[in-house]
Every structure is written in structure tokens, then in C-alpha cells.
């Protein structure tokens, strides 16, 4: 299927190809830029191009690829860094220098790298789709290779193999490959979905204690600029208790990504002691990289995350930030001259977002294992205004909402999660879980802590009018204690040892403060003066 370019407007190119399917991949121009069909008409098709169209001319050739946008899934994705189209950034750098020019095609996985394949089946055996043929060792993980067709095995490798060659063959002649292609916009199948029941420990006290998150759950944290979204995302990526992390830098800063990449290479995972990068896949499409690839980047990332989920791993997808994705959607929509919805965003924004969130969850895989895919997404509302469409669309589907507060950030209280506005729909179940697993007092302390903060807020309003001096001793004590809760418990410095707090330590800390409060309150009741009590504590 070849044709010609008829028109070009920004990232959208009109071609005269016929016989295409919607969302098929198309290569346009002499440079062979990749694009996706977003609109079909009888004699022409509109293609959204993923690379810079500068220099593209009309009448240059266009070629239909007869397949939708796909990612390559196989051993070697871990510790990889890809752009929004799954092009390997390290190898692009090695081959074409520090700047990314369009065009050049590279296979995302390393075809020449040698892997050790340990077969679990033998030649001559009958296999069914989804059965494990064997596995390769990918860093600390056993990466299973599944059978894709039913039939009898004619040949299967044992020992060293590369992705460039077939792993074996079926009796009917079909080759067995360790690499699988999957269309990014289609969720990967599973046997059934389960409801989230185990907590996702992030190591951030305010999240784990006040607004706990579940494995397989979804969370968003919206915040204006300077509220610490990126630092919080990165702290979670470093310390979270999962097997694998897929980090998407979606339309964000290049320097921050450089910092993240450098840190991930040098740091160790606190749970396993292995280098952090070994459990991480990074997808990065910085703000100055093409907009359409930014739109695709979250789908590329979630497909890779699902691939590992299907092996029975617990995977966390972190995206920074989903607003940039929504803006990319808006830019594309407006270049297609679609009727805009609220603030220029297309009307399908919320359904697309909901569809994306739905790819999270705990599943029983086709192989009968339990895997989970959790999502934590940051949102960058313009002007820090949470009534804007992206935040609101996210709120309808996300399971937890961590509101980042500008005034907390100005006071250098980080993570700047507002404890009155934030919520977690997993709270009750997870608090129950922590009470069972960590300490029975967890639930009670959780209640006390919230009450303390609530009462402080009320008192603060009074104090603004009458001054702190005008408050009763018991109230002033409460304010002092609440201040400690805020400064010593809720805030956490991402640059020190304290950046990571396991649940036991979290509990110990809040228990200490609450205990101190009870003691001091008792002393006050006995008639002691506030200043004395405070000095003692």
C-alpha cells in the first residue's frame, strides 16, 4: 500500500492511501516518519505523525504498514530507557549523538545480547497457549517465555540464545520467539480481575498512614508548580514495595530526567538490595520531544507494565504528568479541527482517561498467577486550580487523591500533601490490613492522628482572632503536639535518610508523639503548668 502526501498541518498529515484500518501505522515522507491513522475517508486518510514534520513535502511517498502501533515485549526491557514510541534512547545516543533526529529506526530490544534460556518443556511435548516453555534470567527476575500456539514442540533451545534467532519451532513449522509484539492501545488479556486487597507501601508516612494505597489501585496527585510532584514521584519510585516500576516522564523536564536516571543507576532498592535500575523501565518523552509521541508514551508504558504483570509480578506505573498527556491530546484534537469541549480539551478526554485507569488492577493471569498493576499519576493543573478538566476527569476514576498544597510547599513542608482535602478509597481496608499485619494499634492511632489535625485546624482559626496567648493551656498543648505531628511525622525530607519510612517505623513515630500528648495532657489535668509540661517533653 503506497501513496502520496496531500497536505501537512503540524503533526497531522493527509495522505491518499486507501484500504487502511483506523489506528494502522503509516510511514510518511522520504524520511519514513511513523504515524497512526486517526481519521479515514473514502479516498484519503489523516495520519498523526509521531516525529517532527519539519522538512516534509507534499507528494512525498506514504506507506501503510497494515498493523497498529505496537511495542516489542521480551527479555531486556528492564533497565531500559525508551522514548514514547519505545525507541531505545541509549542506543540512539550511541549511534547518532546527543541530539535526537527523526527517522532512524532501531529495534527496541537488543537482538545480539546473549541470554541463558532454561527450558521447562522438551521436544515432542504437546503445549497449550499460555503454558511456560521455559525462562531466561533477566537480572534478579525469572522471565518466563510462554507458548503462543497449541501444538507439538519440534525443537527448543537450551542455554545461550539471542533475541535475533528463534528459540525453537513447533511441529507445524511455526517459529517460537522470545519476543512478542502487542498493540499499545489494546489491554493485554487476563483470566479475571480481582479487587485490590493488599497495601502498596510507598515509604511516605503521610500516604501509608493517613491515605494508604492498595496494590492494583490508582492514585493521582495534582499540584501547582513547585509543590514537589516530581520529587514525590521519584521518592515513591525509589522506595515503593513492588517488584517492578515503570516510570513515564511525560512531557516534563529533561534535566530532571537526567537526575532521575543518574540516581536510579547508583541507588539500591531498599527491599531487595539490588540496583534500582534493574527493576525499572523508564519511558521518557520530554516536553520538547514530539507531541504525538507524548500522547502514545503512556500506552507504550502501560503495555510493558502489563507484560510483566502477566508473569505474576507486582508492577507500579508512575507517570509525571498526566496533564501533559492531556495537553498532547488537545493539541492533536485541535489540529484535526475537532469540536472542543471544556477548555479546548476534546470531549473524549474523560473516557480515554477512564479507559487508561481501567488497565490497572489485580488480576489472575492466563497462567493462573496473581499479578498487579498499580498507577500513580501526577497532575499539573494550570494555575494550581483543581476545578480544571483534567483533575476533574481523573477524580472520577482514581482511587486515591493526594492534593498537593501550595501553601504547605511555601512553608517547605514536603511532601506537601494536604491532609484535609486528600482521600483514599482504600483507606478502611488498608488500615485494617496494617492493624492485622503491623500492629493492632494502627487503626486507633490513625483515628487519633486525624482527630488531632482536625482540632488543630479549628483552634488555629480561633488563635488567628484571639492570639495563641488567649487559648487555654490544654488547647495550646494540642497545638504544640499537632505541630510536632506535622513537622516530625507528616513531613519527610527526600534528601536524607528519612526519605524512606517502613510501616513499623511510621507506626513507632506516631505512637511516640501520641503517647507524649497523653502524658502531657494528664500532667495538665493534675494541675501542672503548660510551660513545665512542655519542658519535660
Amino acid at each position, binding site marked *: 500500500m503506497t501513496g502520496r502526501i*496531500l*497536505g*501537512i*498541518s*503540524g503533526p497531522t498529515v*493527509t495522505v491518499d492511501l486507501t484500504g487502511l484500518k483506523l489506528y494502522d501505522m503509516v510511514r510518511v515522507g522520504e524520511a519514513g516518519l511513523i504515524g497512526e491513522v486517526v481519521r479515514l475517508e473514502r479516498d484519503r486518510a489523516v495520519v498523526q505523525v509521531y516525529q517532527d*514534520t*519539519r*522538512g*516534509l*513535502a*507534499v507528494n512525498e511517498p506514504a506507506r501503510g504498514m497494515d498493523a497498529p502501533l505496537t511495542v516489542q515485549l521480551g527479555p531486556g526491557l528492564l533497565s531500559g*530507557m525508551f522514548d514514547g514510541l519505545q525507541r531505545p*534512547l*541509549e542506543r540512539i*545516543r550511541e549511534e547518532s*549523538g*546527543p*541530539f*535526537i*533526529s527523526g527517522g532512524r529506526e532501531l529495534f527496541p530490544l537488543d537482538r545480539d545480547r546473549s541470554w541463558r534460556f532454561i527450558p521447562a518443556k522438551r521436544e515432542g511435548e504437546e503445549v497449550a497457549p499460555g503454558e511456560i516453555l521455559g525462562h531466561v534470567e533477566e537480572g534478579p527476575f525469572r522471565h518466563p517465555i510462554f507458548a503462543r500456539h497449541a501444538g507439538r514442540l519440534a525443537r527448543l533451545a537450551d542455554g545461550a540464545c539471542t533475541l535475533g534467532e528463534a528459540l525453537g519451532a513447533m511441529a507445524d513449522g511455526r517459529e517460537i520467539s522470545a519476543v512478542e509484539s502487542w498493540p499499545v492501545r489494546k489491554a493485554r488479556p487476563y483470566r479475571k480481575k480481582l479487587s485490590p486487597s493488599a497495601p502498596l507501601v510507598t515509604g511516605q508516612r503521610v500516604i501509608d498512614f493517613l491515605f494508604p494505597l492498595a496494590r492494583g489501585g490508582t492514585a493521582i496527585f495534582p499540584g501547582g*508548580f*513547585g509543590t514537589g510532584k516530581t520529587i514525590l514521584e521519584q521518592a515513591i519510585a525509589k522506595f515503593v514495595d513492588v517488584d517492578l516500576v515503570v516510570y513515564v516522564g511525560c*512531557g516534563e*523536564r*529533561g*534535566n*530532571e*530526567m*537526567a*537526575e532521575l*536516571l543518574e540516581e536510579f543507576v547508583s541507588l539500591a532498592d531498599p527491599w531487595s538490595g539490588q540496583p534500582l535500575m534493574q527493576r525499572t523501565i523508564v519511558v*521518557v518523552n*520530554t*516536553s*520538547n*520531544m514530539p*507531541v504525538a509521541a507524548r500522547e502514545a508514551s503512556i500506552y507504550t508504558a502501560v503495555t510493558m507494565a502489563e507484560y510483566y504483570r502477566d508473569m505474576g509480578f507486582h508492577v507500579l506505573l508512575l507517570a509525571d504528568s498526566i496533564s501533559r498527556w492531556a*495537553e*498532547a491530546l*488537545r*493539541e492533536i484534537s*485541535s489540529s484535526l479541527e475537532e469540536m472542543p469541549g471544556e*477548555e*479546548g480539551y476534546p470531549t473524549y478526554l474523560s473516557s480515554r482517561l477512564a479507559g487508561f485507569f481501567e488497565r490497572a488492577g489485580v488480576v489472575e493471569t492466563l497462567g493462573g498467577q496473581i499479578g498487579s498493576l498499580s498507577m500513580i499519576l501526577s497532575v*499539573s493543573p*494550570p*494555575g*494550581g*486550580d483543581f476545578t480544571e478538566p483534567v483533575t476533574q476527569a481523573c477524580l472520577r476514576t482514581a482511587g486515591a487523591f493526594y492534593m498537593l498544597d501550595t501553601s504547605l510547599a*511555601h*512553608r*517547605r513542608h514536603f511532601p506537601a500533601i494536604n491532609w484535609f482535602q486528600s482521600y483514599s478509597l482504600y483507606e478502611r481496608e488498608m488500615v485494617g490490613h496494617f492493624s492485622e499485619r503491623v500492629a493492632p494499634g494502627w487503626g486507633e492511632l490513625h483515628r487519633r492522628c486525624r482527630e488531632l489535625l482536625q482540632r488543630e485546624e479549628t483552634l488555629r482559626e480561633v488563635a*488567628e*482572632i*484571639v*492570639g*495563641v*496567648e488567649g487559648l487555654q493551656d490544654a488547647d495550646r498543648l494540642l497545638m504544640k503536639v499537632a505541630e510536632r505531628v506535622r513537622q516530625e511525622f507528616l513531613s519527610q525530607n527526600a*534528601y536524607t535518610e528519612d526519605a524512606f519510612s517502613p510501616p513499623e517505623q511510621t507506626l513507632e513515630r506516631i505512637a511516640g508523639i501520641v503517647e507524649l500528648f497523653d502524658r502531657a495532657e494528664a500532667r495538665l489535668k493534675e494541675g501542672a503548668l503548660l510551660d513545665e509540661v512542655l519542658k519535660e517533653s
Partner: protein
Amino acid sequence: MRLSEHIYRTISSIRGPLLFADGILAVRIGEVVRIAYPDGTVSDGEVLKIDGGTVLIQVFGETRGLDLATPLVFTDAVKKAPLSAEIIGRVFNGSFLPLDGAPMFVPERWGPVTGMPLNPTARARPEEFIETGFSAIDGLNTLVKGQKLPIFSSAGLPAREMAAGILRNSRLAGGGEFAVVFVALGLTHHDYSFYMQVLAEMKSGFVAFINRAGEPVVERLLAPRFGLAVAEYLAFTRGMDVLVLVTDMTNYCDALREVSTAREELPGRRGYPGYMYSDLASIYERAGRIKGMAGSVTMLPVVTMPEDDITHPIPDLTGYITEGQIVLSRELHQREVFPPVDVLPSLSRLMQRGIGAGHTREDHRRVANLLYKHYAKGRDLRRLEAIVGRDGMIESDRLMLDFAEAFERELVNQGGARRDIDETLDTGIALLRRFSLETS
């Protein structure tokens, strides 16, 4: 590649800075179109959109005086910037034509104007300290090489004097070869002569791109990109540390809005186009360092916040892309504090890596945190003071009020003097000591 230039006289309509032409063959997106005016002058344009034979061209010069018979020359080339080491010391207009009377230099090579995105894996982490000589920046919102740190100003505030101070006083750790690229967008003659004098007095080399208030608006979209193409060349080919000062980005965004409206695009917030974030990013993200290469591009854009509103789309989107911001305060300016930097909303995201032993001084982080914490407390208490009055406050709170006042008067305020990092930190320590806050 075409063998000759194609000339058409088929303009079908002219709308603001845009031309529509019909029946054009084999045209490229981004292709440079030369427009010969009836009065003999020549201006450049760029192809924005192609639909069959109909082409939309954005003109970088004035469209006044054009008629439908004006010839259009399609050059088959995408816009490139001429580059050479001889560029240092030169002054150009927004179309890269010399303004200083000297002839155009012979280019050593041509570079793409829009630049190409830097591969994130090739970026080196910015961590080398730049001493600006201002305590409010060096001490509390430290600038590092390869960072982009905008100055958020408001009408009537001395952003100009501050930018000039930074140009005059900046010193680099490690002391590589240093150059300034100055890009002026929509500058009044008054500001222009001020800046030119500052540049003339500077010891380090500079390159200037000047678009004045009366000059074509669309040129403002081009000038910063020329400036950055030159900066990238000087940094990554010549190994220099380049500081790019762009003033004023608000004029850039207004030019972007003007073109967008002429194209009848759907307006976003306050009429600015929906792609303004990506467009600004294509400018700001060109700051950085590259692994294994000498040189760096550091960017200091000046943004004037319309209506003093930090949530206005221009400062808002800028803040989302840049690595922090320096916010100027009208209140401090009225109290004659110079530079009037409000340190609470100001931020340098890359500061943590650029301070401490080996970069500035070992106690930098501790001193900065203490100063910040107590000043924030003092500022918080000012609201209380407004309600209950100073007499209604306890002694320790009154002390914090005094500290905040002294902090602004003695640390932030420094008049025209330059302070090195030791002086800045020592001033901070002396202040903390005087209020006995050194250890808390």
C-alpha cells in the same frame, strides 16, 4: 532537491502576518519563502501548513504594503542559522541581519534554528554553581550551569536592573570561557539603550538579537531560536559556558497568540493557543549540559506577569517547564529593597545538587534551611500582627517579626553591591546569631 528556486505570484489572501498562496508544487513544511515587497525590500516567511496546492505562509516582516501580485520565492530550504566563532561581539536584529554596521560574517556552518531535542540519556546533571552576586539567589535559590531559571517580574519592578546585575556579576565555578547571548523581544528604546550599555561594559563576550517594540511582531518568534542556535553552537562546539538572557517572554507569548488568532485556531486560556506549553518547552528545554562535552547553556528568561498574577498562563506554563523561578515583589520594591526578591515563592529546583562542600560551602544547606524556615515563620506572623496588633503577640513571636524584617533589610537588600557566596552565608549566619536562632 529542486534545481532552481520556484517563483509564484499566486497569493490568494493576506491576513495579518499570514499569506495564503495557491497552486504551489512540491513545497515543504518549514520551507523558507522570500517575499519581495513592491517597494524593493525583502522579507522572509515560513510555510506553516500545506493543503494540496494551497499553502499558508507566516511572514516574519511587516505585511503592510504587500499586494496579491507580490512574488514569492520558494527556496526549498528549512530555516537555518549561520554560525561562526566570529559572531561574538555582534548585534543582530530579529531576522539575523547585522545592526552594528559591520558586514555579515562568513558562516563556518549552518545550524537548524528550531534545534533538535536533546536525548535525555545524553544530558549531564546540572550541578556546577553559578555565583550571581545576589544573596537572595546564591544563598537561597542557587543557580547552576545548564539550568533555566526565569525572573518573574511585574510592571514597574526593576527586573531590568536585576538582569543587568546578573550579567555584570556572574562568576562560574571552575571558570570556563564565558559568553552571554542576549535576546530582546519587543524592547522599548529606553530599555534597549540601557542593556546595550551594560553589554558594552562587560568583559566577557556577548551576542545580541534585538527586536524593538516597533519592529515586526512575528520576528519575536524567531529571535529566541536564533539566540539559542548560537548558544548551542558556542556551548557544544566551542566549549563555552553560555548564559542566555531573554527579555521579555511575555512579548513572545503575545506574538504567538497573535499568529494563532490570525490562523483562526481555537484559543485556549486567555486566548493563548493550546500548544503554548509545547512551544515554550521547545525554547526553554534547550538549556542544559551534555555528558562528555564541555560547555553549557544556562537560561534566564524574564517574564512580566500581567496584572501581577502568577497564575496567568505565561508565568504558569513557564513555571511548569523551568527549574524554579525568582519572583520579584512589589511590596519589597516599595520598601526600597533591591533586589526585591520574594524568597518564599521563589525556588531553584536544582539547588540541592549545586551547594555544599565542593560546590559552595559545607554549611550552605543548613544556613539556607534555617534562614528560610524562620523567615517563613516571621512572614506567617505578619498576618497575625495585622489582626491582633504587635502588642497582642508573645515575645517569641515578636522576635520572629523582627527577624523577618531584618532578613529583608540586610540579607535580601544589598543595593548595587556584589556579594560573593562567603559574604552571603556569613551575613546569614550573623543574622541568625543576632536573633539566637543559630541552633534551632
